[in-house]
């Protein structure tokens, strides 16, 4: 794991669980360890029971998994950094659910995110408690939770204390309410499903952008909703009939829309011409296109338009000599040289040397061909690192801002709690709160609070934006590795 990756994990844990947990989990980043080794490594800084507790908490969230080694007596703990990184996406998950189902569902998901893993009854009751709702809503929430399971947003997970496994066919089976061992069936979030939604959203947006037509987006989203969950590069065939029956608009021109998407150079869809018209989605192709798009944007932002042109020209021509490159991109000779060398130095372009074979006279006349090309895998690796670093930088600033204004923020939090309490009792009066605010905080403090809030929001927003890039990179990696 790279240092940037570790840095982010530490930051996220610190953000979410506090300084202690992140410190305790730090040694685990460099490999799995037993409890004993961990406490020696921490050098008595933390009492053993605190370490134990931390591990239990992290186990609960599946941020740490316990590994029972056959050869050693001890159980070792392994940090699941990928899961930790998912925390960055929590807001996104919530917004997906809210958009798709509504507020109550969102509250359920939120509760489960706070709990890590829990039985359904626990999730529901906890949710009601958190939202200050009355108990008679229990059944209502229960139904909604069952629906979330049916839609595969929640999944069963094996338990640790009493080891239970989950059968493949039962992952998404909801428990009945009065089942005897209902408490033993634990649920967690099914990240895959959320990621699928995220991916679909990005694809639909891309399609709408390409065709400037929202109905195309509808068509695409209907097609995507019929895709079976799989990470195959091409989706299962979907019959036209199925799409038609699920589509709400644009029935008359459905086939035309599909032909349109199919014929576009982006080639998002494939259509089979037979008695049954089946449609498949080229997921791999889509993800590759999207990744190329990010790359281009990054290059053009970093090095300028002309460099982006050279970069893209190299990509579409695979291997190019400098002179040919200049002719294709139509950029003055000297400029081409500087720009390519700049790209080359930053590892965005690679050079392949083709030596002329030695001539008959036994000497090389010194001429080789230098062909420019891209190494997508390496580029992805590097960009991932850079984006991780940027996210880390945003987090550092978040911490610093909070740290610098600790006292003020604490006061504000206390005040907010008070206001919340008053509001719950319906005693709050807008003017009264305003007045209290004026009394407790000086004008300069209020301005400061405002700007802190804005900064924190800005950081958070950018972290989420960058996370989309990470998400696409990750999908790219997955699709391009499964092929081999």
């Amino acid at each position, binding site marked *: 794991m790279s*240092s940037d990756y570790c*840095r982010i994990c530490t930051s996220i844990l610190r953000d979410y669980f506090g300084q202690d947990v992140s410190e305790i989990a730090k040694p685990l980043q460099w490999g799995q360890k037993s409890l004993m080794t961990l406490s020696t490594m921490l050098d008595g800084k933390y009492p053993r029971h605190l370490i134990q507790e931390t591990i239990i908490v992290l186990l609960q969230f599946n941020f740490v998994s316990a590994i029972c080694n056959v050869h050693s007596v001890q159980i070792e703990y392994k940090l699941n950094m990928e899961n930790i990184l998912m925390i960055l996406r929590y807001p996104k998950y919530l917004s997906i659910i809210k958009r798709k189902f509504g507020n109550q569902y969102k509250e359920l998901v939120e509760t489960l995110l706070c709990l890590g893993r829990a039985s359904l009854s626990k999730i529901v009751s906890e949710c009601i408690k958190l939202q200050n709702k009355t108990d008679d809503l229990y059944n209502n929430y229960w139904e909604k939770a069952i629906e979330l399971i049916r839609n595969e947003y929640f999944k069963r997970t094996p338990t640790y204390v009493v080891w239970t496994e989950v059968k493949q066919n039962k992952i998404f089976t909801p428990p009945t309410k009065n089942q005897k061992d209902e408490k033993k069936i634990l649920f967690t979030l099914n990240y895959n499903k959320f990621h699928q939604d995220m991916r679909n959203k*990005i694809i639909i*947006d*891309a399609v709408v*952008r*390409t*065709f*400037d*037509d929202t109905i*195309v987006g509808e068509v695409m989203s209907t097609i995507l909703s019929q895709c079976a969950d799989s990470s195959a590069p091409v989706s299962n065939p979907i019959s036209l009939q199925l799409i038609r029956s699920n589509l709400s608009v*644009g029935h008359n*021109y459905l086939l*035309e*829309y599909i*032909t*349109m998407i199919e014929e*576009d*150079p*982006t080639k998002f869809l494939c259509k089979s011409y037979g008695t049954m018209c089946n449609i498949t989605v080229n997921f791999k192709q889509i993800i590759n296109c*999207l990744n190329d*798009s*990010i790359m*281009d*944007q*990054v290059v*053009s*932002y*970093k090095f300028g*338009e002309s460099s*982006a*042109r050279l970069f*893209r*020209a190299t990509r*579409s021509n695979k291997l190019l000599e400098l002179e040919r490159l200049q002719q*294709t*991109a*139509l*950029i*003055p*000779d000297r400029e081409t040289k500087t720009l390519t060398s700049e790209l080359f130095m930053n590892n965005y372009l690679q050079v392949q040397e083709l030596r002329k074979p030695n001539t008959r006279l036994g000497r090389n006349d010194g001429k080789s061909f230098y062909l420019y090309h891209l190494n997508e895998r390496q580029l992805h690796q590097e960009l991932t690192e*850079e*984006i991780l*670093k*940027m996210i*880390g*930088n*945003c987090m*550092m*600033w978040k911490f610093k*801002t909070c740290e610098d204004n600790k006292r003020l923020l604490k006061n504000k939090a206390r005040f907010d709690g008070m206001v919340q309490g008053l509001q719950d009792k319906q005693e709050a009066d807008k003017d009264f709160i305003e007045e209290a605010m004026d009394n407790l905080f000086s004008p300069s403090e209020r301005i400061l609070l405002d*700007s802190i809030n*804005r*900064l924190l929001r*800005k950081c958070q927003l*950018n972290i989420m*934006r*960058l996370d*989309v*890039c990470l998400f696409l990179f990750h999908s790219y990696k997955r699709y391009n590795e499964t092929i081999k």
Partner: protein
Amino acid sequence: MAAVKRGHRDDLSDVAPLAKKAREPETAEQRVLEIIKCSGNKGVSDEDLIRACPVLTIDERVDVVNKLITSNAITLHKVKDTLRYKYKGPTASTPGDANTEELVVFNLIRDSGRKGIWIRDVRIKSNLGLPRLKKILKSLETKKAIKAVKSVAAARKIVYMLFDLEPDSSITGGAWYSNQEFESEFIEILTKHSYKFLEAKKSKALKNTTIRSPLVKYNTSYATADRVLEFISKTGISKVRLTVEDIISILDLLVYDGLAAKRVNSEGKLEYRSTKTLLSRNAVSFLPCGSCPVIKRCSDANQLNCLNCKHMKIWTTI
């Protein structure tokens, strides 16, 4: 002089009028030339000539061949101990008062055709010393027999070619060069206009309410290079005549800039359509780190870290 001005292309017609008022020996010359010409690259030996025109006596034949050789229409080659005559191809007439050295140089330059020949190659092939060669070139130039052309391949490289030849596009660089200068601004303007044209075509197609079918709308938002060329010619931006290939390379630039997409239509022609990027604004561009040249060295353990980075400080002050 006059012969040179007429240039090598008129050369064949040059011979034809002669044939009209031809008397015996001149027709013979014609026929021999014809025979040699037909033999192409293989050439014709003396025996072949005898077989081909048995009417000619030895003296006449020698006479004719000699005349042809001196008038530079054919050359003599030795192939496996036999002499063969070969046709020299359409030849530009040499300047009348040229001496042998000049002739050698002139022939070399003529043979290089529209691609021209580099002075170094002339020197090597003609075996002349540089000062002498320079003098010869100068004199040929003043006679307007040849001209020097700057090549775009290298700034200082000068090639020589016949005076009335149009330099090859590999020398001039095609439409994108004027006086051996690369015209980036011209290209820039052309790309902008082409893009505008594509954009207009697309928005017109999308706004057209008479067409209901989305597929037709989509297809009409594509434009072929011919159409773009037509538009560009109409606007009169370009003083040079642009070819379809030139426009295709301009439109390809739009593709490389991510502003257009291209596809091959049912007739096998290239079509272009303006597009947007698949993703909206790039996440990286929201942070100063996105364009930071030292991002690799920026780390918490370093002097250079995000907390005392100037750009980050500016970014975080709201």
